[in-house]
């Protein structure tokens, strides 16, 4: 057998081998492919799933900073229901969501519609409106404190020109939540705007041309062409914002510290106070679970309502 022949034979052997492993497993699961999602799964499980389960477990105990304490079943939940401050915090949170989500959804849409064009000005304004989103909550609240603060604030100065008294957004019990909502809308408006913009840019140009030939004016085009085309994004924005705004904390902590008289105390702030100020970890854990279920229900309801109304599109 010549060298060339033996090489060829060896190659053929290898080929056959390769072919065998290649075909035998074609329908079998390839577990090593799971490695691709392993890095994500590690963090997802250790930082999200385990703490979540651990939190449920904690909420069933009389836990404090040092020990998990004794098992008390739904005792913590019972305490929550009888805690007027917690119920107030729940009400405050719903009120805040109601105050902040509709403006975020509507103003975001308005900005996107206005800035959905290819001019330099529009591009600059898009950046401008989005820029507040990159600020940290500390900066945002600092800015809005400067605006709202009595006597020296921007608002007070402007009202002062007309010899008027500015609304006390930081201290009036009826206005504090509105003040926090204004700051929040200003802070969070960038994301809805960007989501709407990307949705608007997906709408084919020809549809607008067809509508123009169909004699549709601006309002009818908006009502019958644009809005139906971005319906899914509207739902997405509303769900995202509900989930986010239910978790109000930083603004309330830094602008009003929950006051006056707990008027601006949201659930997350309550959890923080119970768990990390009073070290009543079990109660804090139970309150977290209530918030979790609230967010879940709100998102599900929103999702299902829009699904039912929606079509097969």
């Amino acid at each position, binding site marked *: 057998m010549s060298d060339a022949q033996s090489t060829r034979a060896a190659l053929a052997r290898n080929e056959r081998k390769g072919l065998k492993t290649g075909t035998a497993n074609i329908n079998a699961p390839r577990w090593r492919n799971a490695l691709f999602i392993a890095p994500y799964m590690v963090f997802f499980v250790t930082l999200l799933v385990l703490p979540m389960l651990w939190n449920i477990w904690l909420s069933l105990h009389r836990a404090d900073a040092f020990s998990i304490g004794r098992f008390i079943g739904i005792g913590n939940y019972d305490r929550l229901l009888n805690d007027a401050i917690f119920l107030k915090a729940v009400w405050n949170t719903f009120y805040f969501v109601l105050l902040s989500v509709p403006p975020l959804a509507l103003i975001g849409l308005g900005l996107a519609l206005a800035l959905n064009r290819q001019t330099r000005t529009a591009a600059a304004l898009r950046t401008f409106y989005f820029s507040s989103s990159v600020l940290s909550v500390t900066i945002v609240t600092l800015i809005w404190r400067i605006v709202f603060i009595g006597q020296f604030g921007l608002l007070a100065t402007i009202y002062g020109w007309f010899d008027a008294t500015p609304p006390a957004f930081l201290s009036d019990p009826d206005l504090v939540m509105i003040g926090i909502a204004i700051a929040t809308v200003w802070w969070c408006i960038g994301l809805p705007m960007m989501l709407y913009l990307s949705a608007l840019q997906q709408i084919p140009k*020809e549809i607008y*041309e*067809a509508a123009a*030939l169909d004699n549709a004016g601006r309002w009818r085009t908006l009502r*019958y*062409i644009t809005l*139906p085309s971005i319906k899914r994004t509207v739902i997405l924005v509303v769900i995202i914002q509900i989930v986010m705004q239910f978790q109000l904390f930083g603004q309330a902590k830094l602008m009003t510290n929950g006051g006056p008289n707990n008027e601006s105390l949201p659930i997350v702030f309550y959890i923080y106070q119970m768990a990390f100020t009073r070290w009543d970890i079990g109660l804090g854990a139970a309150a977290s679970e209530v918030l979790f279920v609230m967010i879940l229900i709100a998102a599900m309801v929103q999702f299902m309502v829009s699904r039912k109304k929606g079509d097969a*599109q």
Partner: protein
Amino acid sequence: MTAQIEIKNVTKRYGSLTVLDNISLSIAANEFMVFLGPSGCGKSTLLRMIAGLEAVDDGEIAINGRRIDNLPPGKRGLAMVFQNYAIYPHMSVAENMAFGLRNISVEQSVIDARIKEAARMLEISHLLERKPNQLSGGQRQRVAIGRAIVKEPEAFLFDEPLSNLDAALRVRTRVELAQLRNRVASTMIFVTHDQIEAMTLADRIVVLNNRKIEQIGGPMEIYSRPVSEFVARFVGSPTMNFLDVDIASEGGFARATFPDGAKLQTNILTTGLPEKRMKLGIRAEAVKCVSEAAAATTEGKVDVLERLGDRTLLYTRLADDSVVVAEDIGLSRARIGDTVHLAFDGTACHLFGSDGKAYHPAEGASAAGREADHV
């Protein structure tokens, strides 16, 4: 009412780029006009300017004597069928068709009647409640046409409406468009780069190239008397044969000498021919494969055979390597590599100057064009 459309000295620029330069043409009422040209020649732009989707930089457009180029698209009394159909995706077929009518507050009973009639005509009655994503490409196309019909426009504008359909459907829709045209008395403007669509549908064709109108004429006029080499090349399939020839005069008519030395007597008058060396153009159907050498103009070697059933196209190579496509009967016995005798019809050829201008056989000329010499 049907539209008579007048386009006067229209120019379109994008920045420093001129895409249409001083275009003037007039479209008669009820005429089926096709804008034909290669991509980028400005044909769609011209249509979109008529529709009002592009601004007119210079010149004016009038419908029935009323200037419309400054009116918004909806006020021009036109309906357009788009290449990608542009059906409203979230509306049912019926809603799609009704939208344009509701916008101008047409009575619901009238809307219903018009939709019913259009749906019947287009055979989409069973689809009226469906959403566009439940329709095939051909059905969407019908909906787009239906949406145009119910508006009862003064003119229909079609922007390459068949180009997204598969080959079989395209042919069928083409025939249906021709039928539709007979039923709906209206002016129609149809943009295409497909010369077969243009030939089959048009009353008149506007051939556009390089920002300008090359030729306006009936399909057969465009086909048999193209004004320029561009039109001759663009219209007809297979593409017209072109040979560089030397011209001599024979009794007042041009006699062409092929690069391989063969001679062909034409009935194109030599008076007015600008050059001695020109391009001869002749369509494949005027170059026949003959059995006797005596009847042939020259001979060529077969490179490629295309059997089309009713006829066979022979891609032949002359002695000097110039390529000539010739036609033979469907049951041609020629094979690749054969040398075949080719008879050129001297009465059906054209001459083109170096500027591209075409010279045709004199109308009713009686030259001895058929007596082609064979060398």
